[in-house]
């Protein structure tokens, strides 16, 4: 078995399965990694998926139109539940975006080789997820046409945003995150775009890819600048992985509401974000590697590593739940304790138990190696984790709001068809973007895989550490 692997020379019992399958060289890699871009667009599976996703996007457009034309009243929100599906979806999508940056930036800085095959993929997901997320802060305002009030623009009224508000921090955090993620992704794309340009089968393709390739010729100087730029952006992105969801968690932690007003929120939200982000990448990667013929570059090694991260972040999230409940009890604050009691016994307890099942119990299967390597199982787990993380945001937002301090003000929240359509619509929109991405851009960073292939075939000798005399 080892003989088949390109990286067999460095294979180690502890290393697990190889990162690349089969004997690959630059030509084969160029060929099979770009193949799905050149495939005819009427590939039946793709077309079917695109139709469904496109329908979802159309429904999203409908729901947005209805919301803007009639008012937030078409949703189920009320007083006391001022935020519900809207902000739940926002936090969920923002969280999903986290895997991309983590993989592309942090794992890059830690020189994790296994990131190479999946970073393009997950970065694209980051960008699309943030686009979906970004819809909600805009839509959830009662008067979205005045949402520009949130930007510090030079106004004749000399009015500025309120910098004490976490919502303003959100505006900056999310927009920065989106910009940097987009740049990072695009920078990494340039060599591949040039490869696409060079391999184009028509003039039009060549022109378009050529424009986006920014005149990349693959010279040493280009590569040097590229590497420096990439490293810098990776460094820039790294704090963002932590900061964005920290700031999103401030939307809640800065308030006085029991169930929101918690110091554990920043780390707990970041862990949850990575957790859900990896689950989402997994949910898409499993079918994508199958249908796009990428099994040789996205190997079981990648999947297993991701499962390990899901397990680790799942444990962090579980710890967050545990501490939340413990502190609520330990603080002796009756309002705080009631919120958690109400989550477990109140009218939304179903969502709460679903959350616990999906986020705490489900990832535990990854303690077992067979489970980490079972593709159907990991697909199911990843879907469940996505559901669980959505439930977590719903539980945090709605159950805290619907029964807060004064019992006379308590009420219930029930979603309307517009709420549900908006949510499912964003999934459709996300899928649409993602399918388009798969259609026009290589899903795997070809140049990086080639580089990895070189490294695996010509490994640098291990560094000998000399200690003492």
């Amino acid at each position, binding site marked *: 078995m080892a003989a088949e692997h390109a990286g067999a020379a460095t294979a180690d019992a502890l290393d697990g399965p190889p990162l690349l399958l089969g004997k690959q060289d630059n030509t084969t890699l160029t060929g099979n990694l770009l193949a799905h871009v050149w495939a005819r667009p009427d590939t039946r599976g793709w077309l079917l998926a695109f139709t469904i996703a496109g329908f979802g996007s159309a429904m999203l457009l409908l729901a947005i139109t209805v919301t803007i*034309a009639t*008012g937030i009243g078409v949703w189920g929100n009320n007083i006391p539940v001022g935020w519900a599906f809207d902000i739940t979806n926002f936090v969920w999508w923002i969280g999903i975006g986290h895997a991309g940056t983590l993989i592309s930036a942090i794992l890059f800085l830690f020189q994790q080789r296994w990131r190479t095959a999946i970073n393009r993929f997950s970065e694209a997901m980051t960008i699309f997820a943030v686009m979906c997320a970004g819809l909600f802060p805009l839509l959830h305002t*009662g008067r979205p046409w005045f*949402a520009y009030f949130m930007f510090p623009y030079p106004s004749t009224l000399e009015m500025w945003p309120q910098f004490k508000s976490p919502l303003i921090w959100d505006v900056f955090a999310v927009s920065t995150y989106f910009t940097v993620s987009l740049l990072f992704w695009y920078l990494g794309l340039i060599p591949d775009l040039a490869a696409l340009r060079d391999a184009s089968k028509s003039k039009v393709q060549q022109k378009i890819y050529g424009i986006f390739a920014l005149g990349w010729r693959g010279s040493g100087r280009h590569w040097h600048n590229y590497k420096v730029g990439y490293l810098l952006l990776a460094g820039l992105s790294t704090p963002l992985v932590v900061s964005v969801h920290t700031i999103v968690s401030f939307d809640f932690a800065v308030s006085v509401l029991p169930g929101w007003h918690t110091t554990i929120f920043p780390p707990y939200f970041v862990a949850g974000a990575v957790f859900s982000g990896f689950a989402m990448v997994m949910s898409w990667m499993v079918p994508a590697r199958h249908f796009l013929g990428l099994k040789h570059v996205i190997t079981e090694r990648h999947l297993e590593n991701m499962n390990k991260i899901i397990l680790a972040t799942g444990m962090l999230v579980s710890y967050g739940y545990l501490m939340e409940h413990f502190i609520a009890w330990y603080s002796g604050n009756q309002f705080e304790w009631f919120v958690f009691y109400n989550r477990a016994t109140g009218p939304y307890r179903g969502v709460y138990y679903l959350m616990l099942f999906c986020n705490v119990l489900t990832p535990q299967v990854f303690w077992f190696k067979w489970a980490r390597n079972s593709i159907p199982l990991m697909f199911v787990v990843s879907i469940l984790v996505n559901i669980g993380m959505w439930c977590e945001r719903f539980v945090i937002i709605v159950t805290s709001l619907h029964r807060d301090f004064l019992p*006379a003000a308590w*009420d219930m929240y029930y979603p309307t068809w517009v709420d549900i359509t908006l949510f499912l619509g964003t999934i459709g929109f996300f899928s649409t973007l993602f399918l388009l991405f798969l259609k026009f851009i290589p899903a795997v960073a070809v140049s990086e895989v080639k580089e990895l292939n070189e490294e695996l075939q010509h490994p640098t000798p291990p560094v000998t550490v000399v200690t003492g005399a």
Partner: protein
Amino acid sequence: MTPTRFPLPVLGSEPSAALAEPSAPALVDLPDEASFAPGRVVGSEHGYDRTYWRSVEEQLHGDAALPDRDREFPLGAFDVPKGFARRDFLQLMGASVALAGLTACTEKPVERILAYTKTPNGVTPGNPLHYATAISRDGLAIGVLVTSWEGRPVKVEGNPTHPLNRGSTGPQDQAELATLYNPYRARVLKERGAGRSWRSFRESVRQRAAAWAADGGARLRFLCEPSSSPLLGSMRAAIQQRFPQARFHGWSATPRDTVYEGTRLAFGQTLEPQYAVEKADVILSLDADFLEARTTTLDQNQAFAGRRVPEARGGMNRLYVVEPRFSITGAMADHRLKHRSADMEGFVLALAAELGKTVAGLGGYGTPVGTPSAERSKFIAALAKDLSAKRGACLVMAGERQSAATHAMVHAINAALGNVGNTVTYTPPAVLDTATGRAGWQPLIDDLRAGKVDTLVVTAWNPVFTAPADIELGAVLKKVPNVIYLGPHDDETGAVVNWFLPAAHPFETWGDARSRDGTVSIVQPLIQPLFGGISEVELLGSFLDGEERKPYDRLRELHRSKATGDFDTEWESWLAAGVVPGGTLAAVVPFVQSDALKTALARLRTPEPGLELDLVADYKLIDGRYALNSWLQELPDPITKLTWDNVAQIGVGLAKQLEVESGDLLKLTVGNRSAIVPAWVQPGQLDEAVTVSIGYGRKQETLGVIWADEPTMVGHDVYPLRSAANPWFATGLKIEKTGKDYTLSYTQVHNTQDGRAVALMQDLEEYRQHPEAPEYRPKTNPLPSVQPLIEYKDQQYKWAMAVDMSRCTGCNACVVACQAENNIPVVGKTQVRKGREMFWIRLDRYYTGDPATPEMVSQPMFCQHCETAPCEYVCPVNATVHSDEGLNDMVYNRCIGTRYCSNNCPYKVRHFNYLHWAQDKSQVERMLMNPDVTIRARGVMEKCTYCVQRIERTRITARLENRTIGEAELKTACQQVCPTSALTFGSLHDPKSQVSLRHADGRRFDVLHELNTKPRTVYLTKIKNPNPELA
């Protein structure tokens, strides 16, 4: 059916100009100039001094000549912007294609504005005027001041100089303007459905008058709304003089007959008891809901509340209540005994027997019927001891629903306890109609059935709807040759009459009225009749001989004799003050005719045991006359917190036994009459009785309105359960479950405090011994804060409020006053159910104790104007900010509607415009808006502002006079209306102000003080004064 035009308000020193009168008689309905009068097209739109018309119909009746009748439910009830129509969608899509750049080509709809060409005397545009007038309920009046903007009344407030209500008003009085501006008021005078002019109506009366003159009016009858108006009294007398055989009968769905019958039984004469609640140390209410802020009980509210605080002069009073349902008064009681209405006579006899042991003059009234429960015996023993210890300073009251015998016994007990002359005095009744129940109308019904009547004039409100089922009034009326009905809406009664006359609102006509104590007030019109309504004075005038005379002239002539000096001068001073001096009724000292009373009591029968049906007047719609008033429909019931519906209130035990839950549709059957009503499990309700309020379930088909999408949302009519014999309660009630559910909308889902220290309540003794307890009552806020501390020293004012929960009854007056003052929209039943009601004041109601016998505490909750407000720092756009004087201001223009402020408000007192509630308002409804307050757009947060518009208006006045604002001149709308003075507002920089005193009171506590929000609105603990013997 938005009216495209309506008469402009009349301004000027000649208010009578409002009523243009015909000058020459005309025999046929031709569109001559004369029929422009109450018929009535007023003003011209397209030219000066000329009216152009397209058809005879339009000329006669204006746009009102439309085929439809009024709507069942008020505008705004169900027509909230909902969904998103296909057309709108296509329009929008089309527009986005047609796109920008073309926007400059839009043609705006033409909207006319009219300027004063000549400003009337006394009017400064932008400064409102206040006119004194009166509002009557059951014929009894209170004085009110109506704020009028350039001739447009927008706010009702109590008249502080009126001796009865002294500035306070109740919820219905506050909502009166929503009735005035209801666009579905009747507009067309009709004969059998065909439009006619006022002139032709008068002509038809004139023609019949010859026949009446011949037989002395033997076949002429009047069915009247109870009234105390001296003018109407004099006109009735004049009609009686002209047609001696004509008869006037009273009609009311909420008759006060038993009050008068009770005095007749006890004293042998018809008298009005006048209670001096402020003098009573111990009060017993036998189902007397005297703390409901009804127009007729406002003085008792004030008097009671004055003795409801520990520091009250004479000590705190003690209230015992015996009643089947959980009423406002019951909720304020120190001791409450659940008791069937049917057994009330037994209770009062048992009490008399117990009192008779120590008090002279109460022996021999008979033995109580039935076997009393141990609970009742204990209650009566303690109560009797308490009453006899406070002879001359206690008070027993019986409710209007109770029998005459109960009332008579109550009078006897009061007399024996020496209360007469102290806590209760008796005067002749101020009302003209002391028999408005069966005693009043049964002779008429008999005559109608016997065919002895050819003309019946109905001025009572909608008797066909409110009539007990067993007299079948609708069928009876159809057989009468000529029925004339003067009503505000072409309703159930309008459908069966020959002549329907649209009634003018009391704010549109001249008139007069008396209060319970006899005080006479002149009713001034605030506006010209909006829809050409006719007043009762005009109607009765058409039955008098001679020229038609203006009500104004009749009124002046009647009162001319009361002037001691120059009439015109005095008349104007009466109008300005709202009170005509010298009307107060002198007290008489009656003596109990015990022998006659004993004979009457001996005839009492033992009531049947079992389940009892209790019908009660609704806390909002009363008898149904406010069913089209959207403010009152949406107002949460003070006890159940239900909106838009009535329910069968069922005790906790009975509900368990029947396995019934709130919202189950029940079939209630008494005898052979039945009605379908949704169930409501009500803590504190007697298990042997089911209480339902009347006035709901106006029939759609009668009104010609079909609510196709929400056909079940009109409440349920329980008048079919009423019998002529006893309109209020009946034994032998049977309950069947229909197996169907009904959707109810209520504003409070959770009913207890869950062990949280939110609305504090203490017993008097406990408070005396530990004034500092409960421990969670902080005097200061020692907690550190990350928000900058502001001392508020440099400003002139430091606005604050204080709510004395000991005084608050939860009557709802403040909620409606706030709605009227601040243009708060009505959102409809569906939206209330979604939790989107907009009332800035939420009356939180918490039960404590056993659900079968709970205590209740009412806590008005509105923006607390926290000094360190959690809402402010989370707003991303600075839309909610703090003012220098400590107000938490809402900047509507800046608000983008993130709702974060509401999420972060621990009191949840902010309300969000989820939809554009104010859109599609008709022009008439727009007249109701207070021009000092912005109409909020869709997507904007709003909340209590401490009536900032009032602060600023007062500030302008004070600044012009170079002085500071005095405490008395500035009142918030809720404070102004409060019948119990539970709310105070003012500046904390004035150490002597009421609000400062309350802030320094030992009972003060800050709600959720542990959050360190430093609220400017503070609360005073509710104190109860229980009898230790019943503890």
